[in-house]
């Protein structure tokens, strides 16, 4: 890539103008270790204080075990959003990164489908750096800033039992996808090993009876957990498709009935803590008095502070130098 790239503050301006075509450059910047200072500029320039409120885009986290058809489902969902003229960014976090640092990012086309897409649809594959289901700081930062320009930002991760927690640290709405007959995810849910999602989706509803059975089990499990607010639906991404428009509607409904700014603030603080830990490790965490201490520090900060500045505050309190 050539280095005539736009600077962090230029990119921030373009995103504020809702220019979605700069998304590739934004990701290139956020992933670039040699451009940390510019990334900081970008994040600060798009903080709620500067924007005069939260970024307007809907950040949706989609997670579930491998092979349940998340990407295909997302492809169908993206088509519904695009048909409604909503701009969509998808950050597909791939779990396959290896010790070597290499990764095979193969999900993109299942989301993209045959259409080229145009600037209203942006898909970026990202390798999960530290561990399976884990989110790189760049992913969280990307979701935050893309929500300034895009109507919908999807973060797709793979896993069960942990990934939904990670996604909950950045999403307005968390969707867990399971497949018919897959008892594992539901067992995790019942056993409390998994956070209750905002929406539970049984994919591959085209397989019929098995999907309906799983849907029934999911609804029963959610009821037992007292999570009657969590909608459960069965969808099929295979043509002619079923339940996709309903899923899009359910996502909108969830957003409409939740307190957006409050949740954003909570995710921003949780994300900042995760970023802080990923940067400074257990030692850094001890220096701020553990998780509880960190949370106390974060809560004391202005709600308008951007995620990056929150990490800096933690580092300051820990007596650690943020610049690297």
């Amino acid at each position, binding site marked *: *890539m*050539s*280095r005539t790239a736009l600077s962090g503050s230029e990119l921030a301006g373009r995103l504020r103008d809702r220019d979605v075509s700069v*998304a*590739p450059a934004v*990701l*290139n910047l956020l*992933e*670039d*270790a*040699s*451009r940390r200072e510019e990334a900081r500029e970008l994040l600060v320039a798009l903080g709620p204080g500067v924007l005069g409120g939260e970024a307007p885009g809907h950040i949706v986290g989609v997670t579930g075990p491998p*092979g349940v058809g998340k990407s295909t489902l997302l492809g169908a969902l993206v088509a519904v959003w695009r048909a409604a003229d909503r701009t969509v960014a998808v950050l597909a976090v791939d779990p*396959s990164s*290896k*010790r*070597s*640092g*290499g*990764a*095979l*990012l*193969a999900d*993109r*086309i*299942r989301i*993209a*489908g*045959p259409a*080229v*897409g145009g600037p209203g649809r*942006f*898909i*970026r*594959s990202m*390798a999960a750096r530290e561990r399976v289901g884990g989110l790189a700081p760049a992913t969280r930062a990307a979701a935050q800033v893309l929500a300034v320009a895009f109507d919908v930002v999807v973060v797709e991760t793979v896993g069960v039992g942990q990934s939904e927690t990670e996604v909950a640290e950045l999403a307005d709405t968390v969707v867990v996808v399971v497949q018919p007959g897959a008892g594992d995810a539901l067992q995790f849910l019942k056993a409390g090993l998994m956070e209750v999602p905002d929406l539970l989706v049984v994919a591959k509803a085209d397989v019929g009876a098995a999907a309906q059975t799983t849907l029934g089990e999911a609804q029963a499990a959610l009821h037992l957990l007292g999570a009657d607010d969590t909608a459960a639906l069965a969808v099929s991404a*295979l*043509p002619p498709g079923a339940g996709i428009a309903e899923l899009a509607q359910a996502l909108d409904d969830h957003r409409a009935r939740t307190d957006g700014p409050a949740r954003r603030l909570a995710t921003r603080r949780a994300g900042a803590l995760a970023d802080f830990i990923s940067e400074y490790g257990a030692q850094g965490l001890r220096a701020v008095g553990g998780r509880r201490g960190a949370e106390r520090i974060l809560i004391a900060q202005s709600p308008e502070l951007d995620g990056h500045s929150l990490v800096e505050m933690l580092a300051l309190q820990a007596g650690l130098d943020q610049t690297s």
Partner: protein
Amino acid sequence: MSGERAPHRLAAPDPAWLMRTYAGHSTAQASNELYRTNLASGQTGLSVAFDLPTQTGYDPGDGLARGEVGKVGVPIAHLGDMRALFDGIDLAQMNTSMTINATAAWLLALYIAVAEERGIEPEVLQGTTQNDILKEFLARGTYAFPPVPSLRLTADMVAYTVEHVPRWNPVNICSYHLQEAGATPVQEIAFALANATAVLDAVRERVAEERIGAVFGRISFFVNAGVRFVEEHAKLRALAVLWEELGRGRYGVSDPTQLRLRYGVQVNSLGLTESQPENNVQRIVLETLAVTLGRNARARAVQLPAWNEALGLPRQWDQQWSLRIQQVLAYETDLLEYPDIFEGSRVMEGLVDELVQGARLELASIEQRGGAVQALSHMKAALVESNRGRLRRIESGEQVVVGVNRYLETAPSPLTADGASAFLTIDLAHEQAQIDALERWRAERNPNAVAEALEELARVARSDENIMPATLAAARAGVSTGEWAGTLRDVFGSYRAPTGVADAPPARGYAEIEQLREDVDRASEQLGRRLKLLVGKPGLDGHSNGAEQIALYARDAGIEVVYEGIRLTPEQIAASALEEGVHVVGLSILSGSHKVLVPQVVAALRDAGVQAPVVVGGIIPQGDVAELLAGGVAAVYGPRDYELGAIVADIVALAVGGSQS
């Protein structure tokens, strides 16, 4: 000899197998001429090679068909093309094999329609449609619809031909491409039988119960044979054992003629080399022995590749040479005078037993996953892994390939002295001519009849009725190949086959990869973020071996690899490169359309503002390299470049160089 016949001799020599040459290119007219010449030189059947747009159901002029029309086979866009293809050839007498899968129902319908026009009843038509869709998802990539509706089309065709075209082999379960994708003998047997089982299970639901024996008897195989010809022969005997077992056990067939394994063969192309290509002739001869030596498992039909397939498309003379191999074997040697020469051989029995046991285990594992359709990802990943091992053994020298990793010294070859004239080059003008011809065809047909036929086709596709009558009606009405397939795509949806690489385990035992990892780490540091590579397959070419192996090797070297599988347009590749922020773009093209597709991808990338260097691999003749480099490509790799490590090292160097611009 008179009186008592000696047990080691046949009373009369066997007749020779059916001799064919896989042929077709440019236009229906040019291919027709080629067929007539081939028949005049003693060929006894026809084997039609269709171009990729025809195989995948796109009309010439479609964006995805660019550069592919008439390239690896003949373009058949409508009834008129089929008429021209068989002009002057008596369909009542001919035995025609068609390598056609996703659109097999359509091509058979066109064939039947042409026969009807000539007053020939479908009952007398003889031939084979390959129609083994599952292996397309596993190995060859010319699928058009998702697995379940694809199998329904297959089942419809079988149900139809068993009643109306009884001498036709509607399905030729094709393990050929599995071996081309790297399958071991055990995998070749097991995956082919699993695919056959999926077809038979689907057909069983669409025919009367008492017809299943007849159906079973019409299923034939199309196998591969590699250069390890003793084991390869054992493979066919093992396949015969397991096929009979499957027929008796699962389908309750008892008629011995219905239970007999019938197979045709094209011997291995994967092992043919670009360097010292004359050695390919002896490879082909030995591979032919694998399928002819033992009478109990001898091929019914043989077609041989040509010596220069790793260089480019074979010319008529190259194909004639391969036909002559068959003729010398059948007519000069004593091969056909004896009963089975391996009966009682401990070696052969032992080998067969080993393969049978291995294949049974593999079959059980597929069955456990719910059958071949459910096990597609499993089988694909297993093939990628086998091929990875094969390349690894060649790279390390453990597996000898003469002229490639041993005995490299050679005197100048008169066969390739003339460079680009050592193979066939397709005139690019054919594509536009074919597009124009289709336009004329459309102008002359009855639009109402076409609309009605397509409407009826869509209705039948949505229903549970047999697809064949509506397909035949569409053929007669002048519907085009792309219209037929497009109508079904609208109903069935599109699909992308598993790439087989996502879950591949990390490489083991690569010493040189550690060094490469350090280089990648260093390059990544220099770039600011992890080195990212896009591996793209533009166009309709489904041969993904090379792309898969490069993607895996690069991943193991620490690179972030975006690989999206086959069949991408230049615009899709450019959009991916831009959105993914890759540092290098690698393209793989084996269909010979690199001269059209590569410039299009490069232009699309630059239009999108992506300056990343582009490298190209595939069956790229040496003579085309300069042109590609002049067109903005940074490096070109052909079959001669078998060391994956060296290619990936180049990519790393390019990524760093590219970032400094």
